[in-house]
């Protein structure tokens, strides 16, 4: 079971949270090609390693926060709050 560090409530069980998906790089410039636009819009970032992702403490305090989670070990490296 994964526990996540809510910036307000502290460590809480994964079942209290909703995953908000990986954080994206900045929106591309308007001159971007169709292929690059589709990549940005629809292709999820899924490395073997740390991924920066957003979580919503939906059943708790309601806070949104960003963490860096290792996709293999689930180690959480960073909390932005």
């Amino acid at each position, binding site marked *: 079971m994964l526990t996540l560090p809510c*910036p*307000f*409530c502290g460590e*809480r*069980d994964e*079942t*209290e949270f909703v995953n908000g998906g990986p954080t994206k790089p900045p929106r591309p410039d308007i001159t971007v090609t169709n292929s690059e636009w589709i990549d940005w819009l629809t292709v999820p970032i899924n490395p073997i390693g740390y991924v920066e992702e957003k979580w919503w403490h*939906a*059943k*708790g*305090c*309601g*806070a949104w926060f960003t963490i860096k989670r290792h996709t293999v070990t689930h180690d959480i490296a960073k909390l932005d709050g």
Partner: protein
Amino acid sequence: MGYQISTERQALQATFDIKGVKAAVARKLSPLGLALPSDRNTTSRSNDITLCWIGKSHWLLVAPAEMETQLKASLVPDDTTHDCRVVLVSDVFTFFSITGPQANDIMAIASPLDTRPKKFPENGSTFSELFGIRGLILRQPNGFTIAIEQSYADMVAAYFRKI
């Protein structure tokens, strides 16, 4: 009932949802003699009023139903001229008490929250998962008080009848 607990569906409570910057909320509540809780996910109490700090800029005030009119006059819900917003939400929640020597065991079934005193103190109050839905959990001397959205109340009452 297999567990040594007593569950009771409580009468309607006067409940106010308060959001805003700390200083403004403190000013708003000072006429009630109510200080803000000092720690996150804890309560402060004054007379029969309980104030729960449930989010970064979010509090829930709970009091007996007969105090609702007096509290409405003091807190002025929906007044947009202040830096904090108060909304009357008495009809949103149904409260249950869970008391008895095995109240902790029931909470362990209902919620992933760590209710050991070190993690959830005597004046603890927090939103967490309860029987799969979002609910408020408050510690009381011989157990817990929980509040869930009113539409789920019959479902939770049925769960309690089964345990």
